[in-house]
């Protein structure tokens, strides 16, 4: 499979701020790639580097084998869905969608037809004559998507596209985006700070922190085998065990991650712990326990018996669930 976007030792500094610091990255063709990280971690700057709104301070970017250096945004076969959608308020929905073809000089009737098709693709048929101001947030988001897709980009960049939508709509759009990406087979690069969104939609996830990529991999890999404490904590909360405790439990002296749902309560055998609190989550119950001075979170399925606060319990887990982390950070 061809490489869609390649970063080699790319940095982007704003004064003393290293927004993107020495990043190596490879996004494959046809992939749904998520850039996940807290705000200010450099993920959006990476997206803007691909779009061409930013130039790297140092390093090299290639898009489909061609160097991106000095190529302005309007000559890149890459389109963006902006976080605030950036629909042109003075144009109708159809003219917004047909903006790319209009610039390329496509005849009026032809581009109107293409715009109507693109609007059908995002399930907004018949909305062409409205103004962006008359649409809801979710509809504007679809228009922004249609406006980008009509240009048949090789890479579609999405900057927190679901951030402004409410939960129900967001879940629906997640599924639609994923289905759209599969049917169009376009490379999607998706920026988000929502780990659930990244895990559920992406083929591969890059976790960003402080301008660096902490880990790249498939969602299951990132979740099951976080390489560092940052990733373990940011991608689904985890119990982080210090080296001394890991050595006692598993014999290796390193930081370890133990997912809350991997811990089970057993009768009479395992690690002794005291329940210090619980909260009911509906689908599960989250217990806070104290295991010899180490606070742990345990996630119990809804069907299981919940021990009372102050009760002594025994904790067990599969040895393979205690994941040893390579990195110190």
């Amino acid at each position, binding site marked *: 499979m061809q490489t869609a976007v390649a970063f080699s030792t790319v940095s982007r500094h704003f004064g003393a701020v290293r927004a993107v610091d020495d990043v190596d990255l490879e996004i494959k063709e046809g992939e749904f790639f998520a850039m996940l990280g807290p705000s200010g971690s450099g993920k959006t700057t990476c997206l803007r580097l691909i*779009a*061409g*709104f930013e130039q790297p301070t140092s390093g090299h970017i290639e898009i489909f084998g061609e160097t991106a250096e000095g190529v*302005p*945004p*309007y*000559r890149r076969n*890459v*389109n*963006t869905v*902006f*976080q*605030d*959608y*950036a*629909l*042109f*308020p*003075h144009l109708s929905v159809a003219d917004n969608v047909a*903006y*790319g073809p*209009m*610039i*390329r000089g496509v005849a009026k009737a032809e581009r109107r037809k293409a715009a109507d098709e693109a609007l059908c693709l995002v399930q907004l048929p018949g909305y062409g004559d409205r103004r962006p*101001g008359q649409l809801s*947030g979710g509809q*504007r988001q679809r228009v922004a998507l249609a*406006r*980008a897709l009509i*240009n048949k980009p090789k890479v579609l960049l999405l900057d927190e596209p679901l951030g*402004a939508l409410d939960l129900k709509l967001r879940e629906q759009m997640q599924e639609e985006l994923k289905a759209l990406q599969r049917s169009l087979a376009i490379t999607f690069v998706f920026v988000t700070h929502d780990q659930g969104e990244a895990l559920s939609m992406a083929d591969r996830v890059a976790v960003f922190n402080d301008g660096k990529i902490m880990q790249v991999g498939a969602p299951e890999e990132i979740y099951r085998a976080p390489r560092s404490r940052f990733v373990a904590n940011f991608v689904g909360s985890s119990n982080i065990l210090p080296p001394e405790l890991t050595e006692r439990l598993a014999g290796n002296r390193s930081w370890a991650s133990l997912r809350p749902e991997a811990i089970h309560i057993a009768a009479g055998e395992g690690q002794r712990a005291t329940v210090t609190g619980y909260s009911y989550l509906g689908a599960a119950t989250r217990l806070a326990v104290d295991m010899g001075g180490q606070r742990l979170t345990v996630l119990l399925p809804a069907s299981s018996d919940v021990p009372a606060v102050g009760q002594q319990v025994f904790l067990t887990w599969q040895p393979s669930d205690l994941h040893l982390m390579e990195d110190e950070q």
Partner: protein
Amino acid sequence: MRSDPNGKAPLGLKIAAAAGLLFLHLPILLIFVYAFTTEDRSYQWPPPGLTLKWFAVTWNRPDVWEALGLSVRVAAISTVMALILGTLCAAAVSRTKFFGRETISLLVILPIALPGIITGIALRSAFNLADVPFSFWTIVLGHATFCVVVVYNNAIARFRRTSGSLIEASMDLGADGFQTFRHVVLPNIGTALLAGGMLAFALSFDEVIVTTFTAGQQATLPIWMLEELVRPRQRPVTNVVAMVVVLVTFLPILAAYYLTRDGDRIAGSGK
């Protein structure tokens, strides 16, 4: 205190409001009435008779046409200069961050806050120092100092309300700088520029003080009117011209008001 928007105002307040409006506009009506008087040496009240002959007299006076022509040309060229410089300046100040940006913003606005007489004296001595002869172009330069401010203020307000990602979106969709300006920037700031330009034109058209200091032998329309008032001959001609000036300046300002009135929504806001 009354907060009901449909409530009736007390009679005293109504009378005060009416008196205020009359005070503002009655003198202007008086000017209009004197344009039709039959008496041409002193402004006699009530006018002894009404006539339309001063319109014909005005039409046939070459000095009126000369002054009017000069004023229109000065106003038009100052406005064009102001539109270009004011827009560029507003774009720079609103779109980029650089050292001294706030200072520049203040310095651009300052000329309109300065009394016209100071601007006039300053420009006159500067032109003298630089050995620039007083001419049509010195008047234009003088007027441009305050016309730029008017356009700048209108343009920067609109730029600030226009989302910056619109320009990026346009570039992203394949438009180069010029196409982006034509298809996205201009339609979004167009009405603001039109309003600013009209206001600038109107300001330049009736400017007296800066003009007296920067003009050579030329008389713009307001200067011509001042000179005419001193001469007790065919006085109603001045009133006819005054009527025309009121219409010429009032209509664009009215249009500007309507054009910018419903521009309150934030352009490009997505949420």
